[in-house]
C-alpha cells in the first residue's frame, strides 16, 4: 500500500534532496506516493503546511521556528526531522557597490570582516555626500538570508535598520532589481546569485559560508501533531530524503541530479548552473573568475542532514537580537525542540552516531555560541534591536 503525500517546495537548489527523493524513486521505494507542489512564496508554503493542504514542505528553517513560536503569524508547532541543506546562500552586489567596497577594503576580499568594514566606510561616505542609503534585499523576514546579511554588516559597524534599507524581495525579482538599480545587493540561495553573475549584472561578494561555517538553511518540515500521528510516514520520508542526499553528494551522480532538478516543473534553470551549485564551484564575476568552496552548500555530507538543536537556538538568538522575538527560556526550548535529531536517528537506526557531526556554528566574529546562554552570547554584539519590537 502506498501513502499519498502532498509536499510543497520553492524552486531552489536546496530543495534537491526532496526532489531527487521523489524523481529518483527513493520515496516510492519507501511506499510513499509523493506529489510535489511548486510554490511561489514562503507565505504560501507556510500557510498550506499549517492548514494541512501540504503534509510536508521544503521550508526556511527560521520559518519553522517562527511558526512554532507564533511570531508574526498564527502559532502552529512544526517539527523538522531532516535538514535539507546547510549554507548555500551568497551575497551578490552590483558592479558599482563591488567597486566601492574594493576601493575601501583593507585585507582579503573573501574576509567578511574586511568587507564589512569596507562597507561601513562606503555607507559613511554616501551619508556624507547626501546619497540615498544602499538597499539590500533578502527573501523573508524569518530567513537565514536576513540574519546572514545583518550579522555580516553589523560586524563592520553598519546598523541594518538605520544605515541601509533592508527589504524583502521574492528571489525571481532579485536579478532584475539589481540590474535596474532598485537594489544594490542581495542575499539569496542558488541559483539566483549565479544567474546575476551569468547575466553580467552582479558580483558574488561572499558565500554565506564565509560568514557562518554551518547554518541550517532549509528543513523538511511537518506539523508536529501530524508527525506524532504518522511516525512511520515521517520515518519513511526521512529515509527517502537521506538516500537522495547521499545520491546527490556522490560527485559521479551530480550531472544526473542536476539534469533532473533542471526540469521546468522542478527548479527550471540550466543544469549547468545547478551543477556548479552542487559542486560548490561558482563563477563569482562576469569576467569569469571562479571560486570553489567545499562548504558552499552541504546536502547530507558532514552530517548535514541531521537536525542540530544548537542551530535552531542560534536562529532564535538572531530573532531576539533583531527584535523579532523576546527572550525567554521557554521560547528557547520551543525553538530547539523544532529540530528533531531523535526522529532522524530513529528513521535511520543511527542512535547516537549522528553526534559525531561537527556541531559548531562557526561564525566569523563573536564568542563561541552557547545554546544555553543566549543572553550572554548576544551581549557580545554592539548593534542589536533587543526589546524594541
Amino acid at each position: 500500500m502506498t501513502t499519498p503525500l502532498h509536499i510543497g517546495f520553492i524552486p531552489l537548489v536546496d530543495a534537491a534532496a526532496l526532489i531527487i527523493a521523489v524523481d529518483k524513486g527513493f520515496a516510492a521505494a519507501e511506499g510513499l506516493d509523493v506529489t510535489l507542489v511548486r510554490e511561489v512564496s514562503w507565505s504560501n508554503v507556510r500557510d498550506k503546511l499549517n492548514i494541512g493542504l501540504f503534509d510536508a514542505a521544503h521550508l526556511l528553517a527560521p520559518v519553522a521556528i517562527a511558526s512554532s513560536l507564533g511570531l508574526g503569524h498564527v502559532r502552529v508547532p512544526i517539527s523538522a526531522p531532516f535538514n535539507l541543506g546547510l549554507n548555500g546562500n551568497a551575497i551578490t552586489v552590483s558592479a558599482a557597490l563591488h567597486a566601492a567596497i574594493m576601493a575601501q577594503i583593507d585585507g582579503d576580499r573573501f574576509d567578511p570582516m574586511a568587507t564589512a568594514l569596507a562597507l561601513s566606510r562606503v555607507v559613511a561616505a554616501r551619508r556624507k555626500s547626501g546619497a540615498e542609503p544602499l538597499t539590500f534585499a533578502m527573501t523573508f523576514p524569518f530567513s537565514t538570508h536576513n540574519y546572514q546579511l545583518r550579522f555580516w554588516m553589523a560586524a563592520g559597524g553598519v546598523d541594518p535598520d538605520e544605515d541601509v534599507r533592508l527589504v524583502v524581495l521574492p528571489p525571481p525579482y532579485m536579478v532584475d532589481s539589481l540590474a535596474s538599480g532598485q537594489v544594490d545587493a542581495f542575499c539569496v540561495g542558488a541559483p539566483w546569485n549565479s544567474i546575476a553573475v551569468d547575466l553580467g549584472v552582479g558580483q558574488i561578494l561572499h558565500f554565506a559560508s564565509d560568514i557562518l561555517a554551518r547554518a541550517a538553511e532549509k528543513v523538511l518540515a511537518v506539523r508536529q501533531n501530524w508527525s506524532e500521528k504518522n511516525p512511520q510516514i515521517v520515518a519513511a520520508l526521512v529515509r527517502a530524503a537521506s538516500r537522495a542526499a547521499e545520491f546527490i553528494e556522490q560527485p559521479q551522480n551530480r550531472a544526473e541530479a542536476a539534469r533532473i532538478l533542471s526540469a521546468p516543473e522542478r527548479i527550471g534553470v540550466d543544469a549547468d548552473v545547478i551543477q556548479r551549485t552542487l559542486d560548490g564551484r561558482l563563477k563569482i564575476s562576469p569576467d569569469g573568475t571562479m571560486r570553489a568552496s567545499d562548504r558552499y552548500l552541504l546536502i547530507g555530507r558532514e552530517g548535514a542532514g541531521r537536525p542540530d538543536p544548537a542551530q535552531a537556538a542560534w536562529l532564535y538568538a538572531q530573532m531576539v537580537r533583531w527584535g523579532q522575538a523576546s527572550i525567554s527560556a521557554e521560547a528557547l526550548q520551543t525553538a530547539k525542540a523544532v529540530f528533531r535529531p531523535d526522529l532522524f536517528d530513529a528513521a535511520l537506526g543511527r542512535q547516537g552516531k549522528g553526534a559525531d557531526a561537527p556541531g559548531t556554528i562557526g561564525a566569523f566574529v563573536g564568542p563561541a555560541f552557547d545554546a544555553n546562554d543566549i543572553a550572554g552570547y548576544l551581549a557580545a554584539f554592539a548593534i542589536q534591536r533587543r526589546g524594541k519590537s
Partner: protein
Amino acid sequence: MGESSPKIVIVDESPIRAAILEEGLREAGFTGVVHISEMQSLLARIYALDPDVILIDLENPSRDVLEQMFQVSRAVRRPIAMFVDQSDAASIQASVDAGVSAYIVDGLKKERIKPILDLCISRFNAFAKLQNELDRAKSALEDRKVIDRAKGILMKLKGLTEEEAYVLLRSTAMREKKKIGEIAQSILTASELLK
C-alpha cells in the same frame, strides 16, 4: 453600512480579475477600493494608502513582501494575516482553494471582514471558471485547426472529398475510443515524420 467603508487594496497582476473583484466590492457598497498591479515599491504604496484590508492572490510572489509589514515598527497600524484566526477553518480553506489571501489591520471587526472575504472568494472562483471556459474555447479552436489540416492531408493522400475525410476521422476516433482532435493530431505527427 453604519460605519465608513473600509479602505481596501487589491494586489493583483491580473487586471481582469482585479476589475471583476473591484466591481463586486463596489456593488456591495465598498467604495474605497484601490488596485495595485505594479509590484515595484509595493510596500511604499501600501504604506501611503494605509488600507484596512489588503487582498492578494496566492500566485503572487509578492506575498512575501507583505509579510515584512509585520516587522516594521514604524508602520502606524499593524496588519494581521487572515489565517491568524483559526476559528473559521472553512473560510480559510475556501480562500486558499480560490487562490486569495487577506491581510487585515488589527482591530477591524470580524463581522465587517466576512462579507469582503466571501465576496472575494466568490469573485476569484468566478474568474477561475471564466478562465477555464476561455481555455476550453481556445483548445476547441486549436482542435478545429488541427482537424482541418488533417482533413487536407487525407484529401490529398487518399483522394477523398472533405466530407469523406471527416467521416474517416470520426469513425476512426469512435473505433479507437479517442477524440477526433487526437486522431487528427496523430495524422499531422505521422505526416511530419514521413516528410
